[in-house]
């Protein structure tokens, strides 16, 4: 009797809970999924999108899947628009875990013609460190960042008609989406440092993986900075704008770790792998703050450990410039944290 009672109650609970759960999943999917029009100009899409997730992304794009998994990737929706006597338009909507992840994918290449889409969501004007573009078009390919979405809309052959369709599809994807600002981390990059060094905004890259770092600025085939999904990082070159005849460009790398302990361990690992012949000058077990600079083959390298953050600057013309740059970036971070604390 008791057994029968328990079984009945279990069924009842299941009947009550399952629809509620499904409703939750459905709401989430609706929020994250893009409703694309059935047709655009002369192009028409198939009835349903192909859904790609981490389990089948390599089947879809081979090793290219590593790029999206290097960020917080939820899933990809693929639609193909076809038309008689026209080449296909491929629409790939990458639904990422955060807006920062979607921004990161756009930041890998700031080239192309900036495109502005009208949004029903008001976006307060905020000055940005990176280029202000949220969508870039070139050669038939539109890349855009809209909240947690990064999208690629590509006409396999560019014509005036296909360009119009590609941009209209971009508008549909971006419409009604929130427009969060660029990742907060970018604020660590001053627009200029001293009177000599100016930020190359168009080369700013935001990432969480050494694979992406290597595609922006090669450091090592191995993950010597312990980058993973719990870290966020930005790299950018600064160009020398003086006529002093010193090296033209330095590369700044800033990484924020989940804890100060991880930052310490990462810097220790970096030093062992990259600067093994140089004395460390800090105890990775206890150091909270540390700064050092080293003369290596391509110039002076400076680094600093500052709580959860590691700053490294490469290819500096001398020790003074390496130290000056490291100090400026560390100070920016501290100032930002202090301001947040007020």
């Amino acid at each position, binding site marked *: 009797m008791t057994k029968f009672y328990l079984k009945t109650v279990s069924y009842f609970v299941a009947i009550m809970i399952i629809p509620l759960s499904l409703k939750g999943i459905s709401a989430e999917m609706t929020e994250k999924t893009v409703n694309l029009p059935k047709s655009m100009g002369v192009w028409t899409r198939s009835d349903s999108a192909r859904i790609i997730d981490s389990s089948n992304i390599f089947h879809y794009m081979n090793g290219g899947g590593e790029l999206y998994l290097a960020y917080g990737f939820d899933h990809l929706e693929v639609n193909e628009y076809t038309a008689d006597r026209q080449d296909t338009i491929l629409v790939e909507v990458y639904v990422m875990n955060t807006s920062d992840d979607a921004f990161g994918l756009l930041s890998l290449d700031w080239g192309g013609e900036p495109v502005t889409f009208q949004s029903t969501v008001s976006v307060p004007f905020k000055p940005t460190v990176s280029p202000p573009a949220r969508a870039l078009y070139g050669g038939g390919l539109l890349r855009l960042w809209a909240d947690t979405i990064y999208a690629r809309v590509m006409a396999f052959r560019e014509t005036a008609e296909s360009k119009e369709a590609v941009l209209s599809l971009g508008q549909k994807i971006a419409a009604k989406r929130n427009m969060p600002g660029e990742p907060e981390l970018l604020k660590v990059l001053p627009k200029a440092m001293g009177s000599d060094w100016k930020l190359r905004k168009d080369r700013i890259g935001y990432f969480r993986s050494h694979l992406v770092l290597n595609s922006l*600025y090669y450091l090592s*085939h191995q993950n010597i900075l312990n980058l993973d999904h719990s870290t966020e990082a930005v790299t950018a070159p600064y160009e020398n704008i003086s006529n002093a005849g010193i090296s033209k460009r330095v590369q700044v790398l800033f990484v924020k770790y989940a804890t100060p302990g991880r930052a310490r361990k990462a810097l220790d690992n970096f030093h062992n792998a990259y600067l093994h012949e140089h004395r460390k000058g800090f105890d990775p077990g206890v150091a909270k703050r540390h700064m050092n600079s080293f003369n290596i083959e391509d110039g002076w390298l400076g680094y600093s450990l500052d709580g959860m953050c590691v700053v490294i600057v490469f290819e500096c013309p001398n020790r003074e410039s390496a130290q000056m740059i490291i100090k400026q970036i560390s100070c920016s971070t501290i100032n930002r944290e202090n301001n947040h604390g007020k």
Partner: protein
Amino acid sequence: MENKQKGLTRRDFIRGTVGATLAVSVLRVLWAKGSEKAVGPSLVTVVRDKNVMDAGLKVNSNILQSMLDRTVLQVTGKRKIREAWADLVKPDDIVGLVPTPHLNPTHEELVDVVKASLMKEVGIPEKNIIMAQGGKRKPGRCTALISMPALKGHWLTGIGTVIKNYIMYSGRPSNYHQEKSAKLGEIWLIPEVKSKTRLVIVDAIHPLCDKGPQSDPRYKWAYNGLIAGTDPVAVETVCLKILTEKRHALRGEPWPISPPPICVEAADKVYGLGTSKMEEIKIAHFGWEEDLLLG
């Protein structure tokens, strides 16, 4: 000072110690082995025709056939097309054609003209010409291979053209990415593949100079060329030069291929597949000269 260095870094490229580091960290074999390397300079031909592809990206097969004919004549040094092909393959060969299917696929028109030439000039029956891209069983069935990749960069290996074209023959393609891409050359030495490649012919009609991972039309351009030779490493080295020059030209500033394509030098120094030194390569160029990118 204790040596704690384990992996390849940027500093190895600046110091010129890539080989030594790779030998210790990844390859675990001696650098500068050189087993199958040819004696004397390796010949690489670059044949271009401005009109092989029109503004709508349509390839003219007749012009492409002429470019192919010119290519095999120059690669073999023969005077007649039939003799040239006969120098590369025999009528009783089972020939595997190995195009690239992904990212920047080999033009089907190129596959068609190569196949037609094998049938017409050598007399190989159609059934003995196999599309051999895929698992290692495919080259295992062949007595000769013609590698036909398209020219392109690759985001995990730097370049994804000649040496990487046989990656599927390994059965474990993901084992050859990142640092382990240095080992791509070993696939050319597995029994199903070793010594079977008679010609490497790179489809450089519409190359992709950025590394992907997906195609971006801004980085594709009409080079309208075929790059060929019998030394796969030399052909790859010339391809690398063209990609690098194009990237610099596009941005007007240095834009190195990143990550650096370590498979090329390793294919030379470790696996002895050919030469990666430009000074050991003789480039023979024919046809359209504008933006040759080999200066």
